[in-house]
């Protein structure tokens, strides 16, 4: 469970998040909104890369904002980036094993291999990431995000730029993350088909404010959302 209260982020004169309130319970939750709405800023606050001007973020009873950025992975936050950031010099195994984990020895090894197996895509753990396709590199990033007993998985446009068949594979993977790890998963994406397919609940950000939240199908039909996000023409 993650609860965000009155979260405000300012970059100089620009207010990126403007008193954002949010509550996600469990499963895969979608966070959508037009470009510049503050979705990635919100993720950066959760990762600790951006210090908010005010507000609080409580996840599973812990105050996240108190933790230093690199300690948040130890707490259990995982994330992927809008531009894929798999480390090309390393093997797939090392890319996943990079994540901080409390597991040691063979348990850790099994966890890493299980994560790679979980994302599928026919990726060998011993292949260099530099030799993989864009879609496979995305999957490696997702594998890293599910390794080491995560509690909160943040996926920032994981399907961006992927062809249809790979997106549909990824859809299955994302859907299975909460069952596989027990983690609350937040998905940011512009692909409404993907959001509709994997998210039970969805929240909509616009100009740093939450304008709607609830069951995905209902939110996507909301008139305000359509106006803010999909354009007015679609309402008419």
């Amino acid at each position, binding site marked *: 469970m993650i609860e965000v209260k009155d979260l405000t982020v300012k970059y100089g004169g620009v207010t990126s998040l403007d008193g954002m309130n949010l509550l996600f319970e469990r499963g895969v939750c979608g966070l959508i909104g037009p470009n510049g709405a503050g979705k990635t800023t919100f993720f950066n606050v959760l990762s600790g*890369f951006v210090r908010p001007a005010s507000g609080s973020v409580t996840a599973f009873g812990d105050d996240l904002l108190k933790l230093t950025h690199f300690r948040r992975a130890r707490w259990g936050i*995982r994330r992927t*980036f809008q531009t894929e950031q798999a480390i090309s*010099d390393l093997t797939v195994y090392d890319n996943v094993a*990079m994540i901080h984990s409390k597991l040691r020895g063979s348990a850790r090894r099994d966890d890493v291999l299980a994560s790679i197996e979980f994302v599928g895509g026919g990726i060998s753990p*011993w292949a260099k990431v530099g030799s993989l396709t864009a879609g496979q590199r995305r999957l490696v990033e997702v594998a890293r995000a599910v390794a080491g007993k995560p509690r909160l998985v943040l996926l920032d446009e994981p399907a961006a730029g992927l062809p249809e068949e790979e997106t549909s594979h990824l859809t299955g993977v994302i859907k299975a993350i909460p069952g596989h790890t027990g983690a609350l998963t937040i998905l940011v994406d512009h692909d409404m088909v993907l959001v509709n397919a994997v998210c039970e609940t969805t929240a909509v950000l616009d100009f740093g404010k939450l304008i709607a939240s609830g069951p995905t199908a209902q939110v996507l039909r909301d008139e305000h959302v359509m106006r803010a996000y999909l354009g007015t023409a679609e309402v008419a």
Partner: protein
Amino acid sequence: MIDTAGPKATATARRGPVMDRRALTRTIVIVVLLLLALLALPPLMSAYYTSTMIQVAIYSIVTLGLGLLVGRVGLYSLGQLAVLTIGAWVGARLLFATSQPFILVMIEAGLVTMIIGSLITLPALRLRGLYLALITLMLAGGVTVVMQTLNFPNGGGGFSGYNGSQLHIPQIRRPSFAGTDPAFYRFSVIVAIVMFLLVFVHLRTRPGRAWAAIKQSEPSALAAGINTTFYKLWAMALAAFVTGVAGALLAGYQRELLSIQFPIQNSILLLAVVLVGGAFSLAGAVIAGFLQAFLPAALYNLWGVPNDWLIILFGLGVMQVLATAPGGIADQFPKDMKRLYRQISRLWRPAPPPATADGAARRIIIQETAEIHTRSVVIEEYGQARAAAEEQADLGPSRGAEGEREP
């Protein structure tokens, strides 16, 4: 729903990375080369080249440290020669002041250098790229200045261990089992091997992963729970340690150290050498060691080429690296050899079937052609649109201006 790539793939995955044939060949080649260097080479070499090869071993350790920083972590340091100087100073001082075994002194020199080096670079850890290079160059300059006043120990007393009025200067001692040059050469090679193994183990385990992550993307490293400052400091400390050990070795090799041995421009040359040799591989460090110590000696010995010419040579080398071969000689040479082998083997074999009748390759070509076509269409359309826009823009204001001029 989830493709697990079949049970077979997973079964091999569980077994772990199998040592493939290439890795095995590589290991055999390395072992044979090292045995040659240790056993076959010393009796064959003249005194001049023995002395040169000791330097190669020592500078390989130095370039190993710098290569680690530059190639693996992305920290551009120009202060490694200063670190070497500190190691040499500490080593020389301890060798004069105590009767501890040489190997122990080497380790101590490494540790002291590590502490000093880490403390000095601690404030610089938030910097990267050009700024880190500048700060470390200043550090190198500072150490040079200190050395000019402090001088290297020459058997005197006090903290500095320097006695300017001494008539008979005692030599810095060597290990009892490696007093002669050939023996000291073997000893240096073994020390170098140990240092390379130390770094190799680091690269293969958690620090290596952390460094690779930091080098490519610090946010990604932080998001994975890597304390980037700590691991950068670790890299600096490890590089300083091996360089400090090399410093003590250098003290034993030279037997008498002078402050003019470490001019500041050599710090820059060292970075060039590391880039040309190959910053991304351990073999590159060895090649860099040869470039640094062997090439000048050989060129001078064979044709009397003065060392200054090397600056031009290395300059060209760096240009080549930046332009076409980012992996340096260590990466480029095997590729070129493979290409050469293919060229030669083609002379014997009948002409291969025209093109690779591989569907995949053909598809790629077709795709690329299509892409180029779309791109050119887009560019053309853009050009037309822009020309139209410019025409309009040109007509608008210029007409107005003309209108103003002729009322």
